[in-house]
């Protein structure tokens, strides 16, 4: 039976109340911030965000924050360890009667892909292994965005960044494949993992709602379409985020105790439609079309979904 949303069937069911208020220093059209805004509608205000160095660090810039909840900036490599300290301290203080239960908070790590995919892997792995009861929200814009779009392990093959430029030696720009952090997380068997995209709000809200039922690590990978780094007009973020999903490049899925379900099966438009919208892929089309690189990307997407089909048949 296909995946069904139980709570969020219509867009009107998404609460109108905002928990991430406007007026931040983030770029116009930030897809990551849109995903967080939607997530916060389920998370609410009784939250402490534990932040790793990245774009979102600029959300809390003295003396302002856009949150009605709390905030702790840690380091680039150890936000999940910060979450551990806050969660453990809250538990201890509540158990010892020094903090009333009504003061309890959800602990939510906010990290970009640079932190999440590389530097904070140790502290994330540790936190999942220790079954820490926390949320991890990774805004994945596929590059070190806050420093101006450098190559990260989340950068996909064929994208151009400032440190993986297209050149005679490397006409495709980035030569590596995007690291599969979802599978790295899944190998730890946390109760809940999901990918989300801001253009699919009902899917996103449903997943945060489902996750709330689980005690332990709840990890989210949010597609964060990034006009500044991906080089498109900020007004096109919804279209870019939509095509990432519709081409099959960004699968929407969840894994409960390791068992994967795809929550949306796209009809799979050709990847060119997504790539063509973004300056970071322009070299694949101009001055001449790099058919081999484009077919490589399409081939990877096709292979992924063949695997999905096969896995479902076997199940």
């Amino acid at each position, binding site marked *: 039976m296909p995946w069904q949303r139980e709570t969020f069937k219509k867009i009107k069911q998404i609460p109108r109340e905002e928990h991430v208020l406007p007026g931040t220093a983030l770029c116009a059209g930030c897809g990551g911030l849109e995903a967080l805004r939607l997530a916060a509608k389920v998370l609410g205000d*009784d939250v402490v965000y534990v932040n790793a160095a990245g774009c979102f660090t600029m959300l809390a810039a003295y003396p302002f924050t856009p949150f009605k909840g709390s905030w702790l*900036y840690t380091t680039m490599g150890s936000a999940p*360890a910060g979450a551990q300290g806050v969660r453990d301290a809250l538990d*201890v203080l509540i158990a010892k009667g*020094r903090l009333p239960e009504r003061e309890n908070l959800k602990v939510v790590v906010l990290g970009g892909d640079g932190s999440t995919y590389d530097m904070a892997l140790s502290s994330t792995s*540790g936190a999942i292994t220790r079954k820490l009861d926390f949320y991890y929200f990774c805004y994945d814009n596929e590059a070190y965005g806050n420093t101006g779009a450098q190559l990260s392990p989340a950068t996909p093959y064929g994208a151009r960044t400032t440190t993986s430029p297209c050149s005679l030696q490397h006409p495709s720009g980035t030569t590596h494949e995007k690291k599969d952090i979802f599978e790295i997380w899944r190998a730890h068997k946390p109760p809940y993992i999901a990918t989300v995209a801001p253009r699919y709000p009902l899917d996103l809200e449903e997943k945060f709602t489902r996750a709330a039922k689980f005690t332990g690590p709840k990890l989210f990978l949010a597609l964060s379409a990034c006009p500044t780094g991906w080089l498109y007009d900020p007004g096109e973020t919804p279209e870019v985020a939509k095509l990432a999903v519709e081409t099959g490049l960004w699968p929407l899925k969840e894994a409960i105790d390791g068992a994967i379900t795809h929550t949306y099966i796209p009809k799979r438009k050709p990847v060119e439609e997504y790539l063509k919208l973004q300056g970071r892929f322009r070299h694949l089309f101009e001055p001449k079309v790099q058919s081999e690189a484009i077919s490589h990307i399409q081939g990877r997407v096709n292979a992924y979904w063949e695997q999905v089909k096969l896995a479902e048949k076997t199940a």
Partner: protein
Amino acid sequence: MEGEMMTGNLAAAWGARLADVDYVPAFPITPQTEIVEALAKWCESGAMAARFVTMDSEHSMMTAAGAAAATGARVFTATSSQGLLYAIEVLYSVSGWRAPLVLVNVSRALAAPITLEPDHNDVLAARDCGFLQIHAETCQEVLDSILMAYRIAEDERVMLPVIVNLDGFYLSFTREPVSMPDPEQVKLFLPPFRPAHLGFKASVPHALGVAVIGGTPYSYFRHQMHLAAMNALEVHREAAAAFEQLFGRRYDVVEGYRLEDAEDVLVMTNAFSSKGKAAVDATRAEGKRVGLLRLRMIRPWPADAIRHALQGRRAVAVLDQNLSPGQGGILFQEIAACLYHEPLRPQALCSFIGGLGGKNLSEGELRAIFEQTAEAGIRRRGIGPVLLYTEAEHREMMQLQLLAAGSRADS
């Protein structure tokens, strides 16, 4: 002597236990491991009402420690050497959060070459991170200093974390008699941790460690940390008086040993100060008027106490168990700086580097220090940095080099 025989490490663990800490994030590293082993056992058995968590690195350990203290828990943790350096990024964060935890560092020299034995380059690498630093000479002092450290750290005028330092091996694994403070009296000395300005809770959202742009707020908050650290001198004085009243033992920011009429003074820190004191006794037995000044508090730097102790002396020698390559001894620089404006400053300042990587400090070396310092005082001209290395040690090293080069030397 009365008291239980225990190692410096066990004394450190008892300090945390008596301080009734709430939370111990841990990571093993030699020579500190015995501390977290003891605490793990006590947390597991219920002897301590604290949560013990083994983290994935010292970097994570310090982050969890600081975050828990910022949430309002009393936190203890411990490390050594490479672990302290791995955590050093976070040390700056934790002090910036004004999270008043206590970190025990069991000194061990830094790689490369890698070793397990002590010197002070590890703890002095954390000199500028905003943690206060207390360096202990004996196992008793380790335990007592941890209790004092919590009282100082948590004082509203300070609100900064503290490192309590002890030497690996020489103190960490050496059994000494330790008089155990009565837990009820500890409660009188150290009130429960109920911070007014820290803690994450639903009714009072707040943001900590936020970005600041433009330099003005950054400078302001850093100045605040400096002023708070300087307040710790007065708070230490009060804590020392209260501690003496309750437990009968007195600790000041510096300790003078036979200074009364001393012409020449040797400045030392940590466990080897005991060797220094024995050398003072031996040298005095030969009719020479020498004394020792042990620095107990390194941050805040007790400049007035040091000036007071060293003014009017003929010569002062600083024995650094650390080396800043291309400069010399780290504490020598600080002693020299704080004596510059002293009208009665000593005639000569001498810098000696010894005890690196656990190398012994022999009676002969200490005798040589006093002799060379006296000569420098008479000449009114300081010397150094002098790297202490005996002839026997030099011969031993030559033998090792021959072995290392063996196959090539043969061919």
